């Protein structure tokens, strides 16, 4: 007699425990696709929690997704800080001109009050409703932008890099303020029902900053912040590389890592085995023009290289699938995981060798 199918929550928890569940979990991290699903503009879609809840539930059903994504868009945090957000018709809302116009502002900067931010309240409502509707059977994911990475939107990338190199006092002051907000925002999402927090931290990636500077900055910030978050976290490099800092990431207390499409999945899995769950690494931008065969091949390759032994969640490389990725590609990814992702994966691994 065959084993009964696991719930998405059981499947994800089993793989996070570095054991093999019934099949490889799939996190299709869909955000703006919800607007298509509900026939709304992206701006209207994100204006009400109920829109996001309806779309997330529909898309989970349609693609047998193993998570519900409570994330709206990264710039929502900037909106809460009082910054400008620019809505687009065909992509995620983008942060506008940096609101830190002079570095002196950092000395008096105060974190936003979550209860007073309409957009953050909509996110919390979304998480609460998604958690109620799924009754604990599907993990609801919350998201924070790390204190070390959010200054790219707060001050602009160039200003921030020069601050890291040349203005240690201002950097430390900004980190203090950001750490307090980040931990509070993560905990608010956990209290609303998020099962785990995705800690987006692309600036810590060796693609962006050398490891020796990371150890003095982003690593320390992550250790402090993650220890203040009252639930599990997954660190996501949002397309940046992670392999050279895997052991450093383990030290931050995170439980999983989202990696780049440009990394060798087999090598990353080897480095993470029994330490971190690997999330990734389908190329979200290439997905836009994949045909069914290409989508199927990419999924099978990823499964063969990283799924044996558990500790793997199939997902994209960026933590957000572009609006332009067609429904057919998403369906093919889901179908392929269902057909080829059932454990044990011995045959798949043998064919890949």
């Amino acid at each position, binding site marked *: 007699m065959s084993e009964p199918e696991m719930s998405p929550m059981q499947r994800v928890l089993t793989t996070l425990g570095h054991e093999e569940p019934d099949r490889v979990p799939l996190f299709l991290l869909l955000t703006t696709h919800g607007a298509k699903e509900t026939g709304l503009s992206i701006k209207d879609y994100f204006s009400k929690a109920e829109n996001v809840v309806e779309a997330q539930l529909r898309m989970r059903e349609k693609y047998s997704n193993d998570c519900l994504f409570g994330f709206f868009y990264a710039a929502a945090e900037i909106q809460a800080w009082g910054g400008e957000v*620019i809505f*687009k*018709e*065909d*992509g*995620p809302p*983008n*942060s*506008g*001109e*940096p609101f830190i116009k002079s570095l002196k502002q950092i000395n008096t900067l105060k974190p936003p009050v979550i209860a007073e931010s309409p957009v953050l309240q909509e996110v919390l409502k979304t998480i609460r409703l998604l958690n109620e509707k799924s009754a604990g059977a599907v993990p609801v994911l919350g998201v924070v932008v790390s204190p070390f990475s959010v200054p*790219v939107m707060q001050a*602009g*990338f*160039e200003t921030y*890099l*020069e601050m*890291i*190199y040349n203005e240690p006092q201002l950097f430390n002051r900004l980190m203090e303020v950001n750490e307090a907000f980040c931990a509070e925002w993560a905990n608010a999402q956990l209290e609303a029902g998020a099962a785990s927090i995705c800690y987006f931290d692309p600036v810590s990636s*060796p*693609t*962006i*900053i*050398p490891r020796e*500077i990371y150890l003095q900055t982003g690593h320390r910030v992550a250790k402090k912040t993650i220890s203040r978050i009252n639930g599990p976290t997954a660190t996501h490099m949002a*397309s940046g*590389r992670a392999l*050279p800092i895997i052991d450093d990431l383990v030290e931050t207390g995170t439980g999983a890592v989202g990696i780049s*499409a*440009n990394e060798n999945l087999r090598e990353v899995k080897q480095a993470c085995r029994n330490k971190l769950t690997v999330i990734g690494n389908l*190329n*979200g*931008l*290439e997905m*836009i*023009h994949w045909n069914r065969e290409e989508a199927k091949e990419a999924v099978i390759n990823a499964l063969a290289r990283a799924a044996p032994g558990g500790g793997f969640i199939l997902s994209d*490389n960026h933590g957000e699938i*572009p*609006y*332009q990725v067609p429904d057919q590609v998403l369906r093919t990814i889901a179908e392929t995981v269902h057909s080829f992702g059932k454990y044990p994966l011995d045959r798949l691994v043998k064919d890949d060798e």
Partner: protein
Amino acid sequence: MQAVIGNFRNALLASDKEAAIGILDKYLLKHTPLNFVEAIAVEALDEIGSGWEKGEYALSQVYMSGRICEEMLDRVLPDQSGQRIDKPKMAITLLNDYHSLGKKIVYSILRAGGFQLIDYGRMETEGLINRVLEDRLELILISALMLSSALQVKEVVRGLKHGSDKVKIVVGGAPFRLDRQLWQTVGADAVGYTASDALKIVSSLQGGKTNE
């Protein structure tokens, strides 16, 4: 010569401005500033750019290297010195979004390479088309971080090709690095995956041809 390039590269990677200036000053005792640009700075920046592409160095090192070089060379090779390379007539812009790091890196590295170029800052599609045609540019470098901005290049290409058969459009930025077909999809003439690619593309266009 290789040792000088290596020392200069290491000073840039460590963001050690004093060491970099020391190497420049010593070199200028026997050579011209433009000679330093061509023989040392461009070579060192190229090694750093290629190293980033291979995952050996970080983007912050590419950026800080370009900034240090730009600042040093502005001192010995000012805009009005008559020694800067002013062909092709070109400008650089950030299309639609506010993520200007890539543009700043390419701008710094082209200037550190001795080129003259206009910084248009952030532009919207229509405004960019009009400005490029008014300025009668031979080359426009477009940087984009967001996919939706990268896709807007298609509109820019349509507008520019309609108004001029002379201007070449070169694109760069994360979406083009992750999807290696995207530059062709949007109809650009060339793509740069690193800032040093931009140097090579612009150098090849001095003779009026693209390298793609």
